[in-house]
């Protein structure tokens, strides 16, 4: 069952990659990257059990953290850019 989960996760990652590549807009790509990140967390956790090495779990935790921060980062930056564009157009 664990193996099945791992395969599913890899498949979902591939799907996310397709979206990240195809877009069409920035937010789709951000979402894809985010999805990719959370699936990586699960993948690492599952692999940790599959290979029997519990120390991988620390890494999964870091992934979850980094993933969150980078999503926030992307959003803030795109948002500020839009604001900027808006103020410029308004002025």
């Amino acid at each position, binding site marked *: 069952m664990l193996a099945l989960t791992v395969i599913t996760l890899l498949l979902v990652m591939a799907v996310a990659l397709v979206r990240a590549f195809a*877009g069409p807009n920035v937010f789709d790509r951000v979402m894809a990257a985010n999805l990719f990140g959370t699936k990586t967390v699960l993948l*690492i956790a599952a692999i940790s059990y599959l290979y029997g090495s519990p120390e991988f779990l620390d890494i999964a935790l870091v992934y979850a953290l*980094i993933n969150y*921060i980078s999503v926030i980062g992307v959003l803030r*930056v795109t948002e500020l850019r839009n604001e900027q564009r808006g103020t410029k157009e308004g002025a």
Partner: protein
Amino acid sequence: MELLVNSVLLMLLVATAGALVVVRGLLASTMLTSVYGLLSASFFVTMDAVDVAFTEAAVGAGVSPLLLLLTVAAIGRGEPRAAGALPILAIVLVTITGALLIIGTLDMPPFGSADAPAHTHVAPRYLQLSGEEIGIPNVVTSVLASYRAFDTLGEVLVIFTAGVAVLLILATPGQRGSARPRYTPGSHSEPHTILQVVSKILIPFILLFALYVQFHGEYGPGGGFQAGVIFASGIILYGLLYGLPTVCRVVRPAVVETLAAVGVLLYGTTGLLAMLDGRPFLDYSVFAANPVLGQHIGILLVELGVGITVASVITVIYYAFANQFEMAEG
């Protein structure tokens, strides 16, 4: 199963790199870079390189996409251009290099073979004796912070140099000191209440987790570098949500810049103490009569130096970049 996971990850890596060749928009490229970082980190996990995976996740999927983003924000997204002529020279160069690399791999020991010279000459000693000589379970930390501690000092110096270089390049003329954010109130139209609340809950745990990684590095994956990155990312998260001026009031740039130097000096002094006692640089036996205890203290100090420098330099770099971004905005 391992083979399958391995091959699929490699194929995904190739697909991502291929997509990066094709995609022209900078934001899309940044996202793909982040995905590439995550994928390579996952690959490192399957290759048993837990510490490397840890670092690559924090750096390749975290810090470097973030810096890319801030740059893209400061310079504009760069309208995708129509493809120019086929870069023949580039293709030729790449083909030659690739062919040379393939030739180079032909006489390499097969993948995974346990009797390859790399696994029989120097490395076995680390695996067999580090338990007695250093007394900590994580062999990577032993090698990093003791056997090859001078390399790690070089590494800290590299990151310190990066901080100095970024400040030198981005210093705005007329300002006292190096690049400093200007204390202008941000023009954030609506505050992200939900994000701010959730992040405010999470940030203390992030910082706590960084400390765990810092001091747990002897037993599991982690260590000064990873802890530094995580600590800095906590600060960056705060900065992203509350604006650069606010985070600069909490974590002062001048203090952070000094701390960057302090970390390197801490590392250097740890080595110098041994020299004053007539022993070689970075010989930790100076700290205690019991060599294993001495190693413990030495590694702790050295890792602390790494952590302080890394956290400060990454924060400094973030400040400098975000400052440019806010300047572009203003």
